[in-house]
């Protein structure tokens, strides 16, 4: 059961803009959710337009809050996200939240590295902002992996995090040339081995990225929490539809037991890449 009871609400869109090709930033008014949401939590968004096709609501990580405002970053992947992205300022999103668990925050002596792959940046923007505002831990770094420089404009909305951020692009058009996991590896190599035990990694991204990341965190014995993405039906832990197998073969509900799990527990589960 969720310790924080979710609410269902019609949230008015205060601002919407295509902040990178195919990626939309939304600021919506949802005080009951914004005041309580923690980094790592998500909301379910009903696809607008009435009718029953598409039928199910879509889960999205919360990428920030400010007063009564809730921020979302939505990448157009199909008909549901297409319809949501067509909404205009002043219209409403029908949402449920806050849902799921959240990142366990690091203590002051820890150095945190946030590793984002593509749209996986969303919950880590919320976490990064939270860490900055609470000045805990002393230091953190945000590593953002994207295909090319074009998607880097997502960060313009989050300029307060630019000084913490290093970008990796697959085509080398900006920042580090390679994957975000390669970039992480070069970062860790600069740190004295004795200090890697003070590192804590937070991650969100595609499953192949998380698999590559797990190889590094296991090699250096670094603790890593990852937020998992999947398709959901209920979003509240009732339908058992969104499970992921842990290392013991137990199916965990991503919506209610997660979406944040210790990476090590999940990456060894059966069908992780399915």
């Amino acid at each position, binding site marked *: *059961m*969720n310790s924080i*009871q*979710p*609410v*269902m609400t019609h949230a008015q869109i205060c601002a919407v803009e295509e902040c990178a090709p195919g990626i939309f930033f939304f600021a919506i008014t949802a005080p009951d959710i914004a005041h309580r949401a923690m980094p790592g939590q998500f909301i379910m968004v*009903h696809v607008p337009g009435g009718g*029953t*096709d*598409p*039928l*199910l*609501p879509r889960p999205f990580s919360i990428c920030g809050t400010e007063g009564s405002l809730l921020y979302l970053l939505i990448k157009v992947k199909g008909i549901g996200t297409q319809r949501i992205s067509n909404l205009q300022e002043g219209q409403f999103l029908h949402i*449920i939240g806050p849902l799921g668990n959240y990142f366990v925050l690091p203590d002051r002596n820890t150095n945190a590295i946030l590793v984002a792959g593509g749209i996986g940046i969303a919950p880590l923007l919320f976490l990064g902002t939270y860490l900055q505002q609470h000045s805990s831990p002393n230091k953190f770094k945000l590593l953002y992996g994207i295909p090319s420089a074009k998607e880097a404009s997502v960060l313009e909305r989050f300029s307060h995090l630019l000084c913490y951020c290093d970008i990796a692009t697959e085509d080398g058009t900006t920042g580090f040339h390679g994957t975000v996991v390669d970039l992480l590896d070069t970062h860790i190599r600069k740190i004295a081995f004795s200090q890697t035990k003070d590192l804590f990694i937070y991650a969100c991204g595609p499953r192949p990225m998380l698999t590559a990341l797990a190889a590094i965190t296991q090699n250096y014995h670094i603790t890593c929490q990852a937020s998992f993405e*999947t*398709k*959901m*039906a*209920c979003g*509240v*832990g*009732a*339908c*058992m*539809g*969104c*499970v*992921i*197998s842990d290392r013991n*073969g*137990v*199916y965990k509900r991503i919506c*209610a037991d997660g979406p944040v799990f210790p990476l090590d527990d999940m990456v060894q589960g*059966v*069908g992780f890449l*399915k």
Partner: protein
Amino acid sequence: MSEQILDMTVIIGKLVLRNPVIIASGVFGYGREYDGLIDVERLGAIITKGISLRPSLGNPGPRIVETPSGMLNAIGLHNIGFDAFVKEKLPLLRQLNVPVIVNFYGSSVEEYAELARKLNECDGISGLEVNISCPNIRNGGIAFGIDADMAAAVTRAVRGETALPLIVKLSPNVTSIVDIALSVVNAGADALSLINTITGMVIDIESQTPVLGNITGGLSGPAIRPIAVRMVWEVAQHVAVPIIGVGGIITADDALQFLIAGATAIQVGTGIFVNPKAPEEIITGIASFMTRHHYVHITDIIGSLRVSSKSEDSDARDK
């Protein structure tokens, strides 16, 4: 006319429901997952996720996929088992002022009977719904629901262990649902729920693999509603026990089709994913329908389908 003076009471066996709107098994976990989103105490009843004697891990993922106006699921009856249900979930369910119906299944007739006997001894259970129709597990479930004799054997065995209102949930994946219904009623069922999901399949053409981990799954949602309405109507003409209609109900209009076809009550399943407030809105919507059509007792709507002699004639011609 206000909602208060409308009589929405319906009776399922010896179970009296304040209204005919029930939340279906499988979409509502163990009754508390939707806390804060659904006021269950306004509802007729709730039905918990199907449980088995021992815990069941369920199927490997992916377990769900969206389809046109519906979804396929192959959860595989992932559940915590009887002991954990009684210890961890039933005390929380007892706190709710709403009848709790427990859905359960077994892998043999004996297991169905044993579980019925154990559930019969528990406090806080208002009725039992026997699942003989899950398409997503190999042993049990649908194996008992597609054969009239097997369905009757399970029903008889369970009936012998409990005096609780006994509802049997039927599969639509059969040639004649009327035959199964008659067989189950003769074996002692107090009521029938119909329909469970319809077996289906979705293929990912790029990888040329099935999308679901279980290959096939059960189709639910508005896509199956016309089939469910037809089956309720067919069965209602042959059995005297109450029928609980389920299949793609999201609005009061959907629910009313089932009542008019002959259902005494309805269940909302996949619909609560679309709108958690759907069950409550259905109650309000039925009330306004009753007011608009000058009905005082909801029972006067049940089976009120009017079939003109003309359509009966064309029915006869088709044969």
